């Protein structure tokens, strides 16, 4: 929030990105026509249920997709340069250095048979840092993320850490390369609520200190609320709504967002009955011709089953992909737009 002058400088600009997977002769439309940008110093969130394409989109950004994935169209401009057109050598300078990534499960993301120190030092390859400098930086990173006795813990292995400490160690290793963009894929999902709280606050704090941008992937609306400046709601590989966090939670304009909000149990809700979204998510191999949410949508009309709606700007900087988004004007959100206090 502090870097107001940086705010409108786009660090990452993704245009019309699509991803297809091919398996057993079937085409899976995992990501469809996704466009968004992340400004410098901003936290942008993808939220959606499992299989909606949020992780696939984030992996496409750093070209970490499996071999059976194809990106038929789109541009991923990082500082104005298209990541999709980079050579392997150019990509290596960006991936893991300019753009770092942390994952849900540190035990599988980090190497169990080499020490934290060695994994941290891998980030310094090609930097001409002296040995003492590396050591100093490594200790500094561990203390930055709040690991006690950093000089001792540096020589330990990941299994010697507790769940929350593992996540901290992974963050420290990723940040050692000074990334400008941190992609965090469900960073707190495997953690207990008190530890989740610590990691959320840690990422928020470090982001401010280092002036990074963050791309957060989560299914948890509470985590979104506590971390993100702007959010995109994903469904069946499509962005269905994007807005700043407060607007999205207080004035949702897509039936799916509204459905998620109504289905979420919360201690802050006055209305006590949950309204589940009926049915289940469609298979990505057999997406309907119209809106993918139509079969489950309470506002569905004939046109929804025939024509895919486009992303419309329903309010300044608030986009919704729905033929009938105006029907949702005045719908109750998760929180009220007025007044920040309880």
């Amino acid at each position, binding site marked *: 929030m502090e870097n107001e002058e940086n705010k409108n400088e786009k660090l990452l600009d993704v245009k019309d990105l699509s991803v297809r997977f091919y398996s057993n002769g079937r085409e899976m439309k995992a990501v469809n026509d996704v466009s968004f940008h992340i400004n410098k110093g901003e936290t942008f969130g993808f939220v959606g*249920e*499992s299989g909606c394409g949020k992780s696939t989109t984030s992996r496409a950004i750093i070209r970490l997709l499996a071999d059976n994935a194809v990106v038929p169209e789109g541009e991923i401009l990082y500082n104005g340069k298209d990541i999709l057109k980079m050579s392997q050598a150019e990509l290596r300078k960006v991936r893991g250095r300019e753009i770092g990534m942390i994952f849900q499960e540190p035990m599988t993301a980090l190497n169990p048979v080499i020490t934290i120190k060695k994994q941290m030092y891998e980030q310094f390859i090609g930097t001409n840092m002296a040995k003492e400098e590396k050591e100093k930086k490594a200790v500094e990173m561990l203390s930055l993320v709040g690991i006690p006795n950093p000089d001792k813990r540096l020589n330990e292995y990941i299994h010697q850490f*507790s*769940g*929350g*400490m593992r996540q901290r160690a992974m963050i420290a290793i990723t940040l050692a390369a000074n990334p400008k963009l941190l992609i965090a894929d469900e960073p707190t999902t495997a953690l*207990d*609520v*008190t*530890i*989740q*709280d*610590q990691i*959320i*606050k*840690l990422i*928020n*704090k470090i982001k401010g200190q280092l002036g990074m941008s963050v791309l957060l992937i989560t*299914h*948890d*609306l*509470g*985590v979104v*609320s*506590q971390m*993100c400046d702007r959010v995109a709601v994903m469904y069946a590989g499509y962005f269905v709504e994007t807005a700043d*966090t*407060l607007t999205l*939670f207080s004035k949702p304009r897509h039936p799916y967002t509204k*459905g*998620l909000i*109504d*289905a*979420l*149990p*919360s*201690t*802050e809700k006055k209305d*006590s*009955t*949950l*309204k*589940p*979204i*009926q049915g*289940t*998510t469609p298979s990505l191999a057999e997406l309907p011709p119209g809106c993918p949410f139509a079969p489950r949508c309470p506002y569905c009309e004939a046109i929804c089953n025939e024509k895919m709606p486009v992303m419309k700007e329903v309010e300044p900087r608030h986009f919704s992909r729905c033929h009938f988004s105006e029907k949702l004007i005045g719908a109750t959100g*998760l*929180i009220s737009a007025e007044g*920040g*206090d*309880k």
Partner: protein
Amino acid sequence: MSEAKKLVEIKHLKKNFPIPRKITDVLTHKPAKSVKAVDDISIDIYEDEILALVGESGCGKSSFARTIIRLYDPDSGEIIMNGKDITKLSRSELRPLKKDSQMVFQDPYSSLNPRMTVGDMLKEEFLYHHICSKEEVNGKIADILEKVGLSQDAADRFPSEFSGGQRQRIGIARALAVNPKFLVTDEPVSALDISIQAQILNLLKELQKEYSLTILFISHNLNVVYYIADRVAVMYLGKIMELGSTRDIYGNPLHPYTNILIKSSPNLDPRKRDEAPAIQGNPPSPIDVPPGCRFASRCPKAKDICFKEMPELKEIQPGHICACHLYD
């Protein structure tokens, strides 16, 4: 609650899991260690209520649940169901009682037999517990599938053909097939997406009313518990720290740990962001629990006595009990 009948009475229940000793430990006469998963818990569960048990991972909530339906054998204490102490019963004596208490597990992927069709699974339940004759079994299966919101053709399909939410419905159908009085659900919605989670929560609520079930609902998610539970018990390292009605626990939490748990839950209002976390540090290991209050080492309000003496559970307000020296 005063006139409500107790369905299960648990008195001083203990369950330890011994830690395997190394040969060097035995030779050097190091004492045997154990994890005190359930450490002297006494609690009454009333008929027709949904009692939630909340706590962080490793606090012993699942061990407690499994012990009270005797999936684990307790080390000491009593579990009185229908006036009978079930801790003393042998396996064969326990068998007719098993259908009174059933369990729904967290992971609908691993708690169903992948080689059996849903119909076969349910048939086994009905016939093993002599719920009905072979001729009636197909009708019974159809009934229970309808109750949990599955289509009739589900009986001929295997668990792998269902989505996560549908599998959880199968798990619930299997548990309810034998008309239990007491249902233990261990994180039944944690593996599910938000939209599906709401379907299952509503289903559990409906079934609870319809069958007058008593449910012990284990969860780490305070928002889910707030929605479904009548009473809430907060557990930390094998002990109950606080127990009260859902309204009291959320509206007026007495124990500092309960307070911190509630504060740690991410607030849904982006305007309410704190910079500092509600609590630092991790829960201590359940192997060498310090004397005194389990929570003292992390408690912002800890006094000297908290490190020396374990506080007893006391009724602070009617129906609201708490184990904390703050209320001595």
